């Protein structure tokens, strides 16, 4: 496993576990993005097909990570899009500009992350 892949896998694992302070820090380091355009791209360019409209994650050939309120730093997020690990498609600059990526990143930061399952009775059967 390359260093990048190790970072990516670790980062996505963190993302999957939820957000908190790390996410806030990551968002602060990110370039300013347009949430509305980010949502448009997220839905139009197929991000939702693997990661869900709520960024809840899903499955492609294997599990697709949770993106809602991701704790992944912007550079790691962009790196995963440009040169992804596993089977995620690589989005070149011709398909997604850096600006588009910043917009998507801004959008997924607005998606609510996980909450406590204890607050949802039917998840405790």
């Amino acid at each position, binding site marked *: 496993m390359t260093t990048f892949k190790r970072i990516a896998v670790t980062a996505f694992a963190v993302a999957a576990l939820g957000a908190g302070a790390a996410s806030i820090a990551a968002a602060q380091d990110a370039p300013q993005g347009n949430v509305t355009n980010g949502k448009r791209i997220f839905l139009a360019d197929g991000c939702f097909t693997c990661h869900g409209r709520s960024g809840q994650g899903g499955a492609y050939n294997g599990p697709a990570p*949770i993106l809602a309120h991701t704790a992944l730093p912007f550079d790691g997020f962009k790196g995963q899009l440009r040169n992804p690990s596993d089977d995620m498609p690589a989005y070149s600059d011709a*398909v997604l500009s850096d600006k588009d990526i910043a917009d998507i990143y801004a959008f997924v930061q607005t998606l609510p992350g996980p909450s406590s399952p204890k607050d949802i009775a039917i998840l405790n059967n």
Partner: protein
Amino acid sequence: MPKRRQQPDASRRNFLKGAGLVGAAAAAAAAVTPPVAANAMPAASEEKLKAALPGPRQVVAETVPPANDPVNQSTSGGDFMTDVLNSLGIEYMAINCASSYRGLHEAIVNHANNKPEIITCVHEDIAVHMAQGYAKIEGKPMAMACHGVVGLQHATMAMYNAWCDRVPVLVMGGNIMEADKRAPGAEWVHAGVDIGQIVREFTKWDDQPASLQHFAESTVRAYKIATTPPMGPVFLSLDAELQENPIPDAESLRIPKFVPVTPPQGDPAAIAQAAKMLVEAQNPVIVCDRMARTPAGMANLVALAETLQCAVIDNAGRMNFPSRHPLNQSFRRAMIGQADVILAIEMNDLWGTLTHFSDRIVRKSRPSYKSDTKIITLGVRDLYLKSNYQDFGRWQDVDLDIAGDGEASLPALTEAAKRLIDDGRKAAYAERGKKLAAAHLAMVERSKTDATIGWDSSPITTARMCAEVYNQIKDEDWSVVGTAIRLSWMHRLWDFKKPYQWNGGSGGFGVGYNLPASLGAALANKKHGRFTLAFGGDGDFMFNPGALWTAAHHKIPILYIVHNNRAYHQEYMYLVTMAARHGRGVDKMDIGTTIKDPNIDYATVARGMGAHGEGPITDPKDLAPALTRAIAAVKAGGPAVVDVVTDPR
């Protein structure tokens, strides 16, 4: 063998021929009248028709009793065939009716009072898939009958799924073997010299019996072959003459005695070696797929896992291991990378399970396990393989390969392991078990937490869909017998612990399996009073929506949840990948991959088939009440469909 129209006839057919001659004579007489148009039929003279007198052949036909073309018979080959099927305890025969097996069909209905019970299906693909789902719950085959050429071609996809899934199904196709017995037209295009060749590459065995005794022996043989592990579908070509004509020598016929084959157990020396490797391992991991074939299978695997206090990764080809057992690590696949010994039981795709494969331009792969990991296989899958279709998967190096039925061999393996475990090991194993239990618990909690994301979203998340359903069926004696592609929330959130609570997937990934196979499983569950439910994708649903009519007609209770993401979603994602790989637009990938504009209203489709229908449900708040109504309809004895508009996965 009995013959069709063996002698020149002087009975009813000649009577009709006589009438035809009269008509022809009348027409000839009328031909002198000029037609009113070039393509008009000449008008017959009514006077001349009335005046025509019976000719000598007609007089003979009306006065001489029939000699060589009897119109009634007191025995039927189909009756004997039915007796053979009933001797095997076959409960149901799913059919799409066809003239080439009308003899057998009529015999079942009248001679045996509809036993096996005929299940009327509107497509042969439905009939075979029902039999596949039934067998995985009931543990024995049901029969299926079809037209031997055209019906069998319809049945092939389902037979391939059953083959890949290693499920016994007795498929029969009508045929007219003797060319001089075939009527003009359809009977020729529906007949073949060797119709079994259509399905031979994905059946365990086939035959075309040429006599009733031959049929009896071949049917019992087919049943035995189908039910001997590795199991699979079998095919019999049924000659129409054999079914329809009288039994020539009833006294000579006998129905062979069926005795099931005792499944082969692994060689004792090899089992002992496997036990030693597992007992001495620091991190043994069990992986399994189509292991449990009877209710004993799960208990046998639990016994081995608890003896070793080791991780179990279940590929869920059958109900192998309880979902909430502390040793269940199915959603912690990284365990494979930590294993020093892997025991693989009845695996379908061992290489795929132990390999990290990259679906990129260069399709690279690398083992998921360590280079010094020892791999033991136990199973019978490789004892019967064929060449053309590549369902056997890629070669996997192993260290100990034991030919033996997994379920049957497990007790001996467990006992052998127990004999090697001293007190010191017991303490270490207990510690290992505690760690695994903690990891399992964390995994369950993590799943619950993940499920909260997008909880109130519309389209509805698949996590919420599964949680809402479970909330309403958890206190039933439930059996979930189908799922959509990569929909795993049930196994992450639900408490699977009974042998019939799950029965695996399609086998061949042939779309169209899920709805009819679920109905077959529900048919098996019905007599046991279980509550059957299934999830299924919208794409799969549309392959065989007519299966719902069968469910309504035969009053098969099932709650069917349509996971309606309005797409062939896996293909949608593949297309996005292709566009991204080529560095061009990824915003048009819904072309050819989605099922929208217009959206299909599955509840209306269901109601049109006589089933209860709910939906489309787009607001998660509407889901629980819709489920309550649907469950009431199922408890009233019929099928109910709930169309849930969902997020993709």
